[in-house]
């Protein structure tokens, strides 16, 4: 009994003089943990930004959380209530609110958008921070957090409004192996609780260990996708093979010869 949480059809998006996404199709079902892999500059981040209505696009359709995004200028924020409630995003550089503590970062949206009472919002925020192992840093400012701590606070902030779909942009890029294990375990736990995850990464060891499905992005389209093991071990697609030849630990593909 599959339910489609995110459906992208024929998406085209370009910057002046350069096509970033050229006719991309992608579907994500409820409860999946999808890894989106591709070379740097391949449009992975842009795709995530388009899903949360931060990037306008020229053609195609994005259906997510009961909202239908169409080509043209971005819709007004007031028309995106469903999207905002249904989709959370963790940016690669976190973008935690610099003037607020970790706890205040997490409670801001529940209090001011969800109209949850401050006390209840703080209780829930503490639970989230605790489950992610950063409760001790609740009163720290973002500038006082380490990269890994900031990431976990950012995840807690994205989860505070209880979105069905969580997007994470390059969450493994700045983590050492031990931290990467912890992150994977946390995301697995979220998945077990019924949450849907779409994660961009270069790290195929991480993908192999945690993701349920892989989509390979090359030249602005999804060129290859399927079960993690199948794609990583058996795919003959040149883009996939090239991607897998790069060193996983470096977090970045080796330059093309």
């Amino acid at each position, binding site marked *: 009994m599959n339910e489609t949480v995110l459906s992208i059809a024929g998406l085209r998006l370009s910057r002046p003089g350069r096509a970033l996404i050229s006719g991309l199709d992608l579907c994500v079902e409820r409860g999946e943990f999808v890894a989106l892999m591709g070379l740097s500059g391949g449009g992975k981040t842009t795709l995530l930004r388009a899903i949360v209505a931060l990037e306008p696009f020229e053609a195609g359709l994005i259906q997510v959380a009961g909202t239908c995004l169409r080509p043209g200028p971005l819709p007004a924020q007031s028309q995106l209530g469903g999207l905002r409630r249904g989709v959370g995003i963790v940016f690669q550089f976190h973008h935690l609110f610099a003037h607020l503590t970790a706890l205040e970062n997490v409670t801001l949206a529940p209090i001011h958008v969800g109209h949850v009472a401050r006390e209840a919002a703080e209780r829930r925020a503490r639970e989230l921070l605790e489950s992610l192992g950063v409760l001790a840093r609740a009163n720290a400012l*973002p500038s006082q957090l380490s990269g890994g701590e900031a990431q976990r606070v950012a995840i807690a902030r994205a989860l505070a409004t209880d979105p069905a779909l969580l997007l994470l942009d390059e969450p493994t890029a700045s983590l050492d192996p031990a931290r990467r294990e912890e992150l994977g375990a946390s995301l697995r736990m979220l998945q077990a609780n019924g949450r849907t995850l779409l994660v961009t990464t270069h790290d195929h060891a991480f993908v192999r260990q945690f993701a349920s499905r892989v989509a390979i992005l090359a030249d602005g389209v999804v060129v290859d996708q399927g079960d993690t093991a199948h794609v990583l071990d058996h795919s003959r697609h040149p883009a996939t093979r090239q991607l897998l030849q790069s060193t996983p630990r470096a977090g970045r593909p080796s330059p093309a010869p």
Partner: protein
Amino acid sequence: MVATPLVVALSWSGLLVTPSLLAQTSVPRVELRWGGDAEGGAPFVEADPANPSVLRGFDVEVAALIAHDLGMTPRFVQVAWSSIDASVARGDFDIGMSGVEDRPARRRLFAVTIPYFEFREILTVRAAERQRYSTLASLRGRRVGTLGGTQAYEMLLEAESVHGVLPVSYDDDVHPYTDLAEGRLDAVLLDNIIAARSVRRTPGLATVDAPAGTGHYVGVLAPQQSTLRHRVDDVLRAAMADGRLEQIYRRWNIWDAQQAAFFRRTLASGAAGTQGRAEAAGPGGLLEATRRYLPALLKASLITIVLSCLSMALAVTVGIGVATGRVYGGAWPRRALTAYVEATRGTPVLLQLFVLYYGLSSLVRLPAFVAACVGLGVNYAAYESEIYRGALQAVPAGQLEAARTLGLSEVQTLRLVRGPQAFRLALAPMTNDFVALLKDSSLVSVITVIELTKQTSIFAANIGSWILPGSLCAAMYLAMSLPLSRLARRLERRWQVTER
């Protein structure tokens, strides 16, 4: 005209090759440099309307008479009326004389000539109220204006404690009368010459016949110039005796029976003709004067603080509005706000205060303090808005996008994320501006608000020295601005914003 630069160049080169500059100092000087304020106007000193490069007035003629009898050539040196004493003391000219009053403090600190003119302190009121306000005593609770730093102002201060009148000090002798006509004042107390001139100029005013007091004009010289002073005294006495001074006064329509009596008294009594004149300000030492002025200085510094705080609050409020409009607004509001900012920053605040208080007084009659707050506030709002605009634009885009993806509306993003972060960025330049505003608040004395600097200059004029009042005044400004800077540094440390 074409030859002018060449001529100038030649004369300069002449100066360089001949020792004429050195020679000048050894030759006895034949010029009598006399200082006065041509802004004071007729009949004292004014530029001839027919030929503005020529001066005329009875003071001009008296100076010419003195110079002539001393065998010298008069040369006029323009100086602000309130700075005549300080300027003669530092040697800018030999004698200051355009309506310079004979006052005890001046006598104590300078070489002062014998009085050469006796004036009456005259009340001017609106014609309809001439019967009602005929004496200072009848003006209890009423605003009475005059020129600051004068004998008339001292009289008003005394009348404040005795009769409860409300003295208002002006920096010039024209605006008290226009303000009287417009209802901002109920009376003006000034010399009969000025009163007569102003009643002629401004319709609807009338002078009260009975004088509120008398005073005298003198020439003021540096204290070490007593020899020159004696020679000037001799010239003046001779000119009183032979009728030449009378001729001058008749030409300027200021000769009357009172003047004749004054001349007779002066000639009969010898040198110190008016030494015994009654005067509000007693002598007393420096300490005594300080003790007397300290409460006024403290009150004035309170006005400076309150004025600065209110103006800054207005500047911050308007500045936030303008900055928000310029960042978020449409094309036309943006253009209008930009025009406001450029016009305000590009013109002197002094001019803005004048226009607001005097220029617009036919449309809206703002009380002086309100006009001061509004003028400074609106002026500083332009600077504040630029700071806030820069700060708003300096908040990283990632912060705004994070707020958007969490579902915050545009207004909430501004209020909860962008605004607070911009405020922290703006804090240091804002503190700078507040300190600057604290000092710029001294400009409002031109629209009759007596704040710390004005009160200090009144104090200094009265005791004839800037050293003690200046130090006190500086200490008070520092006492206001230093804690402010310290507070700002503390807040800045606490609110340091760095996005990682």
